[in-house]
């Protein structure tokens, strides 16, 4: 029995106090295996020790909530006995070390979280952050991550229908790879990760266990430093074919009524799945490790308990159903073994050939880990970021050039190069494919559809984490609304730096409060989520990036709306108010190389009114297109509506009233709560009336048609054409830029 030394404790990322807590719980010194189990379960990644006190502020209830946070994924009711199960997760650190496998196994993990619930996965979305593509390393990371997501998702037959890609050098040494998955289940047939029924068999299903990713969970709770090199062997290789078989086998066992509980073996593998299932049910579990299928010889109990080999599940079957479970697994050619049983003593007891190697109260491991209310305070530099004197920034001279620069900046440019590598049509539900404000998927056997999107402007969050988080929620909801969907649920993935730093913790606390307030105001419950801390390299933190994944519901799939113009002669109407707001804009970054200022103002009342108005217009068939104004402002939104359709591209002639505002603010400012719609002229009156009834400012700003985008700015004295570009010029810059940047030598 090795002596637990201070060094060993430090290697396990446990503090002296945490270790003392372990000794108190056990009433003795832990064994090495026990120390390993505590260290992974009490890591930031698994225990949420720094975030839990704040996450409590998020609103998690609502009439549609079937399952809130606390399970493998959340679920909302979509009527007709069905529910939508969804969650988002990060795989940032593994993707930096090995982009293809890191991203691929990230997809594998979130898929398991969904089918664990008894839901068949119907869609994936991915939200990515990379450094700018001027370095070979950033290009390699991007190529690898996209290929990894494609490699796994495509093979699984789950369409990747949406997401985000944003570029900023702050992510060069810590890219973000967040993946969200949606699944569909019958509401009363949801499965949960509980080990109920004393004496029930505990069954291991899936890939054999190897020495993969041992300490993956603690790695995700640690920053990168030069020792990243040393940690490399922990990379895991994904096997999507195995996962596909596992998916089918699990769904078949669930449908046959053989199971009482099920959980994937994700971070912290067999340890987390077993102790969490027991803890939720208030039971214990006894495992015999010699029965665990293995890929490598001579694995120690420590390694078996901590392995993060992919594509594995832990099931609790109903007593007497073992044989049927085994038969289904054999049919699908997946490894399976009965490795333990449910006990009544609340203890996770691990045996190796009959000898006890670990004996820990399951609740202590899963729920009674340390909790920290870490100190937080705004950083001294915060004021420098937001103080921006606009007098020193000249107004735009050549608006044509400015628009083209924005359209070809990779954050705004078309993401076709990415989403064409993803199968986004398999399962034949994709009504709105990637390339519009939100993806829309019909629900077979009903008239309904669901929409999904991920959004976060992390520059806003840097400048003001509270406002930035509120805007992320508002923008996600607006994207759904523009697709004709009513927002019904939210999942988040909170990517931040080191929580032990008060400035980072301040960003986190502010962001969570922003999320909470926006969700409260827009009545959108948070049903699942994930926290990823320690996103920093050599002391440099990423921008605070609270990714918001949101789902919406359409009563009629055939009313799904898209962002592109449809017909010559249609009116173009701008809903919402344009203010002089350039702070944190893509325009300031691209044209003036500044990431500064105050993010745009957001009134959640105005936002709600806008949503009600737009949803009504779409439901009544009064608009032909709807597009949210975000990065790059109205000018970019107009260009996107001209260019992004699958058929013939349509131009537009637009006149914007400038008033006393700067030209660049009118064209490229990112004022919130604005939507661009196009409509047949016959509907103009009804639309303007509806807008007035909802107290939403509305202006007819132009007409669809021709093969140019022409924008003029008017004030009391003049009416100047400031943008006049052919669609082919615009298209070339916007559609081909990303591919050019990724493939540059």
């Amino acid at each position: 029995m090795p002596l637990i030394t201070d060094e060993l404790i430090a290697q396990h990322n446990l503090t002296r106090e945490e270790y003392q807590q372990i000794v108190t719980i056990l009433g003795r010194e832990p064994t090495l295996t026990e120390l390993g189990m505590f260290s992974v379960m009490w890591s930031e990644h698994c225990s949420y020790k720094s975030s839990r006190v704040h996450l409590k502020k998020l609103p998690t209830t609502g009439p549609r909530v079937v399952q809130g946070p606390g399970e493998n994924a959340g679920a909302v009711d979509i009527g007709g006995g069905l529910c939508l199960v969804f969650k988002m997760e990060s795989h940032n650190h593994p993707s930096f070390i090995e982009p293809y496998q890191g991203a691929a196994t990230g997809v594998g993990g979130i898929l398991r979280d969904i089918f664990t619930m008894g839901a068949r996965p119907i869609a994936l979305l991915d939200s990515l952050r990379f450094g700018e593509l001027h370095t070979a390393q950033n290009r390699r990371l991007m190529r690898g991550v996209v290929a990894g997501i494609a490699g796994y998702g495509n093979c699984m037959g789950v369409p990747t229908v949406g997401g985000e890609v944003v570029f900023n050098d702050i992510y060069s040494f810590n890219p973000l790879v967040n993946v969200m998955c949606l699944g569909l289940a019958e509401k009363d047939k949801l499965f949960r990760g509980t080990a109920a029924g004393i004496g029930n068999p505990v069954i291991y299903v899936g890939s054999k266990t190897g020495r993969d990713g041992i300490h993956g969970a603690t790695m995700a709770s640690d920053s990168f430093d030069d020792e990243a090199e040393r940690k490399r062997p922990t990379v895991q290789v994904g096997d999507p074919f195995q996962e596909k078989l596992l998916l089918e086998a699990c769904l078949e066992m669930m449908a046959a009524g053989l199971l009482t509980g099920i959980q994937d073996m994700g971070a912290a593998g067999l340890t987390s799945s077993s102790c969490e299932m027991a803890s939720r049910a208030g039971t214990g579990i006894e495992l015999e490790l010699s029965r665990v299928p293995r890929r490598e010889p001579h694995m120690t109990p420590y390694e078996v308990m901590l392995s993060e080999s992919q594509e594995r599940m832990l099931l609790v079957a109903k007593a007497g159903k073992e044989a049927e479970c085994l038969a289904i697994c054999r049919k699908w050619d997946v490894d399976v073994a009965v490795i333990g049983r449910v006990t009544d003593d609340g203890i996770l007891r691990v045996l190796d050939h009959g000898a006890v190697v670990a004996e820990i109260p399951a609740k202590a491991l899963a729920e009674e880990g340390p909790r920290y209310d870490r100190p937080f305070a705004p950083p001294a530099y915060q004021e420098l970021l937001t103080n921006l004197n606009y007098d020193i920034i000249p107004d735009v001279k050549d608006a044509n050039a400015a628009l083209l620069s924005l359209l070809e900046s990779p954050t705004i440019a078309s993401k076709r190069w990415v989403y064409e590598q993803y199968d986004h049509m398999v399962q034949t539900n994709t009504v709105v494919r990637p390339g519009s404000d939100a993806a829309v998927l019909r629900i077979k056997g009903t008239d309904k559809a669901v929409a999904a999107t991920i959004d976060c402007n992390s520059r806003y969050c840097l400048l003001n984490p509270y406002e930035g988080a509120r805007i992320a929620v508002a923008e996600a909801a607006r994207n759904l609304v523009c697709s004709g969907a009513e927002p019904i649920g939210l999942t988040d993935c909170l990517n931040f730096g080191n929580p032990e730093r008060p400035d980072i913790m301040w960003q986190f606390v502010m962001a969570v409060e922003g999320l909470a307030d926006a969700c409260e105001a827009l009545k959108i419950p948070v049903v699942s989520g994930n926290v990823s801390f320690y996103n920093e390299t050599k002391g440099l933190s990423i921008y605070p990036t609270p990714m918001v994944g949101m789902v919406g519901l359409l009563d009629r799939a055939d009313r799904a709306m898209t962002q592109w113009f449809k017909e010559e002669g249609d009116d173009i109407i701008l809903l919402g108010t344009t203010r002089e707001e350039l702070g944190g804009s893509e325009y300031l970054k691209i044209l003036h190389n500044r990431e500064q200022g105050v993010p745009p103002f957001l009134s959640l009342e105005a936002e709600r009114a806008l949503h009600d108005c737009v949803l009504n217009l779409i439901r009544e068939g009064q608009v032909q297109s709807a597009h949210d104004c975000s990065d790059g402002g109205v000018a970019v939104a107009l260009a996107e509506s001209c260019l992004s359709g699958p058929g013939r591209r349509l131009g537009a002639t637009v006149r914007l009233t400038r008033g006393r505002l700067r030209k660049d603010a009118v064209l490229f400012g990112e004022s919130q709560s604005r939507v661009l719609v196009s409509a047949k002229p016959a509907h103009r009156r009804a639309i303007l009336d509806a807008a007035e009834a909802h107290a939403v400012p509305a202006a007819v700003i132009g007409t669809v048609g021709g093969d140019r985008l022409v924008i003029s700015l008017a004030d009391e004295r003049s009416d100047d054409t400031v943008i006049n570009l052919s669609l082919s010029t615009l298209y070339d810059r916007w559609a081909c830029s990303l591919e050019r940047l990724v493939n540059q030598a």
Partner: protein
Amino acid sequence: MNLGVVVFPGSNCDRDCQYVFRDILGQDVTMVWHKERSVAGLDAIVLPGGFSYGDYLRTGAIARFSPVMAAVKEFAEEGGIVLGICNGFQILLEAGLLPGAMLRNESLHFVCRDVCITVDNAATPFTCLCEPGQVLTIPIAHADGSYYADPVTVASLKANAQIVFRYCMPDGRVTREANPNGSLENIAGICNAAGNVLGMMPHPERCAESLLGHQDGRVILASLVESLVHQRLRKQELLSQLP
């Protein structure tokens, strides 16, 4: 009609094919597990898209040894109608039911998008409702779709009108620009010499409803059903003429 959709481990368009034939075209569909050894009672067989056996080693290479493939081969030899879509096409090539082989896309990337194909042969059971030269818009989704065969084989494909679909521009011109994967002769789909086995890379089942954008794939699937009806009538006629 009773169509069999074969389910290999790793198939992932099997349910899409089931849905389109059953719910959109109103036919009976039987899901055929790859370990079955008989396809008795089926009027036609569909090998769906996906990643059978993960497509590890080569696409379709391992699936061709599934027990059901012997029965499929026999069914085809007796004139039964067999449609292989995407991975199904790759399996038919590996199994030798169609000539040639599939290479990695020239771009080396998986590609998922709409393309145009022209119907080069409108006289097959899969295209009988098409006009010759008709241009269809249809999605592709594959990483290994660059069709290859030696020059002799290609010549005989041409001579026998076995090239059924070719990638083309929206106006029907078959150009290099229209080729999404580097396929020889812009080949998107070929049939066997007898005409009863078709393999195609594009996915007709993904565009058979207007809700999904367009429904050009429907004419291919409906042709297949129409051909089965004719085949049955012909059989009945022959039977009635027997003494």
